């Protein structure tokens, strides 16, 4: 599908921003959401020897952060290739 370069760049940037919004929503949810705002509600749910809210605040959020960055790397590499803006 031939696109003029200017338009192509615009679409690439828009896709990039969409990826960011999705990933940052999850980032906010697991830390500020589960770890702080709704910690008391989640603490009524046990997870092994943990209370769930406490687990998110001191363990779970960090694991999710790591996954988020690798998901970003994967998606962006795919996006770069699709729009032919990747590096050699």
């Amino acid at each position: 599908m031939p696109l003029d370069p200017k338009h192509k760049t615009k679409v690439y940037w828009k896709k990039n921003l969409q990826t960011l919004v999705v990933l940052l929503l999850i980032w906010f949810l697991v830390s500020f959401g589960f770890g702080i705002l709704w910690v008391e509600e989640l603490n009524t749910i046990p997870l092994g020897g943990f209370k769930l809210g406490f687990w998110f605040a001191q363990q779970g959020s960090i694991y999710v952060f790591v996954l988020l960055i690798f998901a970003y790397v994967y998606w962006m590499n795919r996006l770069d290739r699709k729009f032919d803006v990747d590096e050699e």
Partner: protein
Amino acid sequence: MMEILTWTYLLVGLTFALYIGIAIWSRAGSTKEFYVAGGGVSPLANGMATAADWMSAASFISMAGLIAFAGYDGSVYLMGWTGGYVLLALLLAPYLRKFGKFTVPDFVGDRYYSNTARVVAVICALFISFVYVAGQMRGVGIVFSRYLEVPIEWGVVIGMIIVFFYAVLGGMKGITYTQVAQYCVLIFAYMVPAIFISMQLTGNPIPQLGFGGEVEAGVSLLDKLDGVLDDLGFAAYTDGRKSMTDMFMITLALMVGTAGLPHVIVRFFTVPRVKDARLSAGYALVFIAILYTTAPAVAAFGIYNAINSTSEKPISELPTWVQTWQKTNLIQVEDKNGDGVVQYLADPNTNELQIDKDIMVLASPEIAELPNWVVGLVAAGAMAAALSTAAGLLLVISTSVSRDLFKTFRPEISEKKELRIARIAAAGAVILAGYFGVNPPGFVAQVVAFAFGLAAASFFPVILLGIFSTRINKEGAIFGMLVGLVFTLGYITYFKFISPEQNTAEYWWFGVSPEGIGSIGMILNFIVCVLVSRFTPAPPASIQEMVEEIRIPRGAGKAIDH
């Protein structure tokens, strides 16, 4: 059986020899090598170096203890100091790598086509880095004095010589590869005692799982801890004492501050490609997360062990580690009611036991009854953590002076001369940092934690807007940075130094403590930046093109092979 002191000298000496060897092997020959290691560091090596750069003496020695006494409230550090890497990876690192220069003030000065903006950025960078580096040198001195039984002053001087060697000689190239070695040393030193303690207490060798394990049949460690603390009059371990607003604001300030710290950002200039910058942020967080998910487990094990082995025990029968560490005043027992038994209580009038937070890591090998070499290993690990962070900060300081100040205003100087100035600046910074390490101004300890608030309120908004908006101009950026910085600095100074007696939730604006005020400063910076830009002329077309250009990965500058 070898003495603890012999082991400590041996292990610390060996690691120092390793760092110096690496420094000689990786000398910097050009300014590009000195500033960004030639831009040819592999993402994995950069991830390790970033992790070592990031985890300071405070992360290694003090954080677990801080969490042990703060319980759930300690989560702000865990989430704050890791979540910032998500922001860094997604919002800043790839674009700054594409921009392809050497420093944060470089970006601010070029993007906002203004040397005023550049100078404001340099001042912020220098201030943040100096505050931070003085604390590291102090950390080196303390580790030396505790483990090697030399005076703090000598400890600082020895630390200065080592850092001098590889930061001044090797520049970023030397620092990068020593930091890789330092990461390996520090993570090994942190994990060995943690694994053994976890096994002893819960039967599970993985601390992250032992954290949720059982200490008695059917009773989990955390439930037990909640109960024990409650009996002694303390708040439950898994409950918070800080208000939800304050928790939120402190976490946000730490996250955004992490993403805005110049010595962390500059690490992403050292990789060859944009996709490497993204990937190495991921690796960095993996390496950081290993320590940061272990620390809360060490915290819970530590406080549980400390209470269990002292509370309601006769003073004459306290374990040997309590007696050893009493000598350093990190544990103090005072039999107030004269019954010969230790009472650890929340009420300061009847409490007979004072435990310093640093003990949770420093004494962990003895608490777990591990062999003497583990003690030496922990000392070498603490030293690695302090030295690696100090070196990263010193590089930011020297680069700011030689490149952002000298080269900007005297563009005709040769590369050779610029390199010499960078080395002289690094040497000067080492000496100044050492001086503050020996004679710490009272405010240093207070201010280190606020470096994050300042980074959040000054750099983060203007870098972010500089990438994601083409309309933000120099007027907006300069006013934004100044308002964010002055507001945050003013609020902290007022509550910490002018009226410390008012430093309670009752007087705080919107219930936000000075630790969390960087979040408000950041929001102000954003608002001012956008508003001022709207009412002043748009940036020149060439700048708008530059912004479009950094959004596309292809075409990042070539790297020099190592």
